[in-house]
């Protein structure tokens, strides 16, 4: 098992390097010069030149790439142009916000979805199933920002339960998390309910369920110990991959709920053409996504010996 994990991490190294190289060149295709973006439309030619020299932007592209790549390999992500501080520090400040939002959202959504999924599977074909299935596919269709805006409107403006500014003073941690969490849970639950339902249905046709019932076990026991136990594997896998895509959703959520996670950091960096910060943030997000995928594969491997042996 150990070597399987090692192999997965080693195979992730070229991907991360690939991400760095791709981001480095693609963002330099973006028209607009970081110096000008920072100095505004009134900047004179001389001012811009001073700025470019200071951040090594005037060096030919391959030279810039050589320097950036060597630093990257030694773990130094360089200094942010717009935030005047090391990129690593800027990212580490904002990372917990996004990770905790994505983590909590997916886990809470997952737990809720397991129950809804089981209910939909049990009442297959009857009205609860139709209702839950349609609602969940509606939940998947609503754009994240749309749900977010309405949550903000209802809970912050009309009910005043939570503050509009989640990072204002005197706002408790849970108050600031309520809005984005609720929005995320709506999305995540819809995704997972359908997975739970289909994997439960699949399990129902298995023989060992019929034998369990034949032995006269109480229905509840059959449902939770046998059916759900085996249905957990696909559920865990989808939960893992949802965690990876949840980072994408966080970008939009942070714009709606003024949460200062890595998503809003990245949007600001793109507008300011802050090359080092964009590279740093993109690479960190990529590493997070890969880490989550590997963790999910490992848990998937543990949970289902068949997969581990064949070492797909």
């Amino acid at each position, binding site marked *: 098992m150990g070597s399987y994990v090692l192999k997965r991490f080693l195979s992730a190294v070229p991907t991360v390097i690939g991400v760095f190289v791709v981001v480095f060149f693609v963002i330099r295709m973006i028209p607009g010069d970081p110096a000008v973006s920072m100095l505004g439309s009134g900047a004179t030619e001389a001012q811009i030149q001073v700025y470019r020299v200071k951040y090594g932007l005037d060096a030919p592209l391959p030279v810039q790439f050589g320097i950036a790549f060597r630093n990257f390999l030694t773990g130094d992500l360089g200094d942010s142009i717009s935030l005047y501080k090391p990129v690593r520090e800027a990212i580490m400040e904002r990372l917990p916000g996004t990770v905790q939002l994505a983590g909590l959202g997916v886990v809470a959504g997952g737990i809720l979805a397991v129950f809804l999924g089981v209910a939909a599977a049990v009442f297959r074909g009857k009205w609860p199933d139709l209702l839950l299935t349609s609602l969940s596919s509606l939940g998947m269709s609503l754009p994240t920002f749309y749900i977010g805006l309405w949550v903000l409107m209802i809970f912050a403006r009309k009910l005043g339960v939570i*503050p509009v500014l989640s990072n204002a*003073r005197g706002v408790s941690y849970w108050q600031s998390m309520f809005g984005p969490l609720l929005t995320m849970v709506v999305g995540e639950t819809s995704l997972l309910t359908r997975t739970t339902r289909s994997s439960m249905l699949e399990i129902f046709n298995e023989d060992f369920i019929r034998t369990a019932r034949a032995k006269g076990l109480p229905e509840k026991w059959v449902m939770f110990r046998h059916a759900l136990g085996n249905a957990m594997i696909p559920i865990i896998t989808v939960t893992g991959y949802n965690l990876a895509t949840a980072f994408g959703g966080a970008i939009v959520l942070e714009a709606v709920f003024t949460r200062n996670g890595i998503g809003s950091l990245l949007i600001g960096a793109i*507008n300011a053409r802050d090359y080092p910060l964009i590279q740093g943030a993109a690479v960190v997000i990529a590493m997070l996504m890969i880490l989550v995928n590997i963790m999910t594969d490992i848990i998937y491997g543990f949970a289902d010996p068949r997969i581990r042996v064949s070492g797909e």
Partner: protein
Amino acid sequence: MQRQNKKINKLLGFLAVFAVLGLALSGCGGNSAESGGNAPVSADAAPGGEKVLRVARDWEDTSWDPVTFTGAAQLALTPQIFETLCKLETDGSSSPLLAESWEMSPDGLAYTFHLRRGAQFHQGYGEMTSEDVKFSFERNLDPDTGSIHAETLNLSNVTSIETPDPYTVVFNLASPDVDFITRCSQYSSIIVSRAAFDAIGLEGFASTPVGTGPFAYDGGTPGVKTEAVRFADYWGAAPKLDRIVYTIITDSNVIYSAFENGELDVIFVYYQDKVNEYEAQGYSINYIPSDQLLYVGLNAQLDPWTDMKVREAFFHAVDPQYFLDELFYGNETFPGGYIPPISKYALTDYLKPGYDPARAKALLAEAGYPDGVDVTLWCVNDELSTAPSLIVQSQLKESGFNVELQMVDFGVFIDQVRGGTAGMWLLYNSTPPLADDTINRYTSDFYPGSNWVGVTDPVYDALVAEGLDASTEEEKTAAFEEAQRYFLDLKALYPISTYGYHFITQPNVTGAKLWGDLALHLNEADVG
């Protein structure tokens, strides 16, 4: 049956591990997020009735080093922390601030400042002396500070800065500079502490401001939130507020709902209808005559604008009155010149709106475009520029200009205009209180970097040079006005309207004052 249970326990165990992992991630995130700025302090007014003013803005300079400040209008917290030698009044005159008094030598080549005694720097960096003033000006010349103010301060004209005693500074100039005092009251001439620089260096200056102002920096995350607390040993009248909290919110929509929810005290509003709405609801409205102008520029080097007739036709195709009535509800005026009225030397009544679509069509026909001409209008894709560009598009259509809109990201827009490839563009142009730079930028040697209109006219260059070298204010004013008249006759830039915005405060907020540098100073502000 036994084996079955073991398997399921293992699986449920994994789910538990996964859940705990998720929570742990968020848990550990939880406490660091707490320290990261949204500290769960209890009720808003801290214990002991501390007076807190909560200001919000949609953008800020993210470095505190004065050498990087680019414009007066955007300053919000900086004016409370930093100070300059002189204070620029709204009528354009300068009054004493860090300098108690000053005098100019008869030949105008030497200015002597007598500094205030006992002005302390924040964070215990001691009293401000002439050494600090000399350092603050000369550091702009040092290349690795990356300062962009050498030009605006006209430092090339300063031959030397002497400090005969700790409280006297003498500036020797190569040639007389009529506006030297005004330059010393601008954000580009902020006085910083030499001792602080020796201690924390450039990086330190970027992350922690050390000034002499009424409020001192008290931590925060750039681009997110910053706080300033009352400076106990401020030299001047002690401020009434205990603390200012200054938050960056990019989504204007969120700023409004937070303000209406009572979570913010002072906000800046750019939309006139929103201002009217707040006025109706009894909030106090304060107009800031901004140093910005809404204008449409034409690149005289690109077709079809090379032809004077076409440019003239354009001038007859735009109706500024529609903008003033429908977009700005009468709060703005037609500038009549390309320098904002509040700037010194601005020529404000030369250009007259001549909206006459028929005349425009006739001119186009004469210029060889009987059935209209296709042109492209470049503008920035922010909420501010959308409405005006649509108006320009629809108005020009009636005069035979079929306008294709190119609404692009700010970086792309700047690339186009600086590269000299944009034929026509719409922008809010900002001009510092001293109009020298703006007038100077349209001279030939600034083409195409800053001189986007492509005017390379020796007559205009000569007039501008004459103004810059003038030794008396009257000469400078005369030369600059002549230059502006000449430039406007070239019809390469159509100023549509002045552009100001408002800062709106909760009814219980008083004493927020606006100085000549168009920045909001909270020395006397109070939360009633």
